[in-house]
């Protein structure tokens, strides 16, 4: 029972960052109809900006996190302006291939700049974990959970309570009508891609200190983001948030009770199960995608 409680606690910590990853990806897919193959690379970039900000710039851990998020926001905006804006209206395959190309450039660029050796990010938290009755959690992981939940909340506020969010939701429903109502759709696309990218970077910056930072870390993160998004239904933000926690739970229990070597395979098993039983995702309205 104690072991199970510990798994649940780990699920919460991991699930928060997975939800961030998933929300970013599903936002971009839902609004722009772009399968973002730079998502993993942006996750990596977020972790490396965090690393640089803490070690080389000496910004301090808590100032480094917003720096990494801002870095993701900026890089996302640049990617959209340079690559996606000229391709607006092109078919999905074309943008997918361009995004794969951009992902390769970013990933091998990181490898070239920083080398393949894994780096660890120093944190200001004490090494001794916090004891909560029979279970324990490190202060760092607790902070990661808090930051992830805060970012998810901020994102909800942005989408549901601001004019920008209103314009984004309008574009999501029908970009032609939104455009006729005076929404600057081009700007909304750029903002969407930048925000989605910043969430990926935030996830990388939060999980980077928990694990280690290396150039290929984004590959698996991207795959997990895909699984989360399929689980929640493509384009469904609440679905992605819940999907993040479900994937984390599946991984924790899979690693704990089946085999730790297959932890990363859980996402795929979830994709198979969803496609067999409920292809539109667990939380989708009755509409067919694809």
């Amino acid at each position: 029972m104690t072991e199970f409680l510990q798994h649940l606690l780990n699920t919460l910590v991991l699930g928060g960052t997975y939800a961030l990853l998933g929300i970013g990806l599903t936002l971009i897919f839902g609004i722009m109809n772009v399968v973002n193959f730079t998502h993993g690379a942006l996750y990596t970039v977020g972790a490396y900006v965090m690393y640089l900000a803490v070690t080389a710039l000496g910004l301090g851990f808590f100032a480094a996190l917003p720096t990494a998020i801002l870095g993701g926001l900026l890089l996302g905006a640049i990617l959209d302006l340079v690559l996606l804006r000229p391709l607006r209206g092109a078919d999905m395959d074309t943008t997918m291939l361009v995004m794969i190309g951009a992902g390769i450039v970013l990933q091998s660029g990181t490898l070239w700049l920083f080398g393949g050796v894994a780096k660890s990010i120093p944190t200001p938290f004490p090494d001794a974990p916090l004891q909560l009755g029979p279970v324990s959690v490190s202060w760092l992981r607790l902070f990661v959970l808090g930051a992830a939940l805060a970012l998810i909340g901020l994102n909800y506020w942005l989408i549901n309570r601001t004019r920008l969010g209103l314009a984004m939701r309008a574009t999501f429903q029908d970009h032609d009508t939104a455009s006729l109502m005076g929404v600057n759709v081009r700007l909304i696309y750029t903002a969407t891609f930048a925000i989605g990218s910043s969430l990926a970077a935030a996830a990388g910056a939060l999980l980077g200190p928990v694990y280690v930072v290396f150039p290929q870390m984004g590959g698996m993160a991207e795959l997990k983001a895909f699984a989360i998004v399929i689980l929640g239904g493509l384009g469904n933000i609440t679905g992605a948030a819940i999907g993040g926690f479900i994937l984390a739970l599946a991984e924790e229990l899979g690693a704990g009770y089946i085999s730790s070597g297959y932890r990363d395979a859980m996402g795929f098993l979830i994709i198979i199960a969803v496609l067999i039983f409920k292809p539109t995702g667990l939380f989708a309205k009755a509409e067919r995608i694809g």
Partner: protein
Amino acid sequence: MTRHLPALALLAALAALPFALGHNPYLLNALITTGIVTIAAMSLNLLLGFTGQLSLGHIAFFGIGAYVSALTSLGFDVELLWGLRIVHEPWPPVVGFGLAVLATAGCGYLVGRLSFRVRGAYFVIVTISFAEVVRLVALNWVELTQGPLALTGIPPFSLGLPGLGSVTLRTKMQNYYLVLVVGTLCYALIALLVRSRFGRAMRGLKENESLALSVGINATRTLTLAAVISAAMAGAAGSLYAHYLRIIDPDVFLFSTTVTMVIMVVGGGKGTLLGPVVGGLIFGLLPVALRPVMVPEAQWMVFGVVLIVIQFVMPRGIVPGLARLATRRHAPGGAPARMPAEARP
């Protein structure tokens, strides 16, 4: 026959190439691995080019083919759940090749049935995840695959020639011609398929699905069949790879190889017969040309940039671009001549 003239000319040139290179083992090795990946790229083109479905896990079929073929010829002894033990004595590599083709065809069927219920982005994601899980299995099922320690000592192919006894393909020269023969057979098979009723069904689905459905084309069955043939061909390429290199590890499942195949297909010209071959030769041999001037990371950046630039500058790829130039030259001043059937998008 004139339709296939460029392909026949290319075949003749490739057959003569080793002599022109003066048996340079380094270049010959690059040509063999390029040829093997090109066969996989041709199989990817069957899906991506002719049905429009992007399989980003194609390396899974390649790797499964390699492992099935290697394990068949090496033998294994594994214990499954509930004490069930399977002991397999080594069989000849040629049988491994056959089993690799069958096994990957089965995998293609499964993946196709599963993901063609919902297509587009779903198919892409399912294929990537499939490849990743297969890699995890190869890495973790150490009893069967030796995990990261790699399967070593894989025997080379032996071909029994009637009346001449059997020949074991040990030299690079022999393997080069083996790859060339298998590649030519795959090319011919795809050429026949594309012109068949099945090929027209595939193209119909890609151009206008609702129209194709309305004339009675079974979408799921057509796409699944395409996935089966494509997977089997990639499995054949994987088998060639295993018996040529004679050592394989879970790195054969790396996503980057799938990306290389995609660049070959898209760069050469997806949906054309010659495109993947031309793209395969260019992008397979590009690292050889770049090696003296840059580190591998920078080479990959070049590949990424090339993939982006192609989409902007030459979205149809090199072969259709050249075909259009050629037809324009033959019809000076007049309306652009009709493009060859396979060069149409």
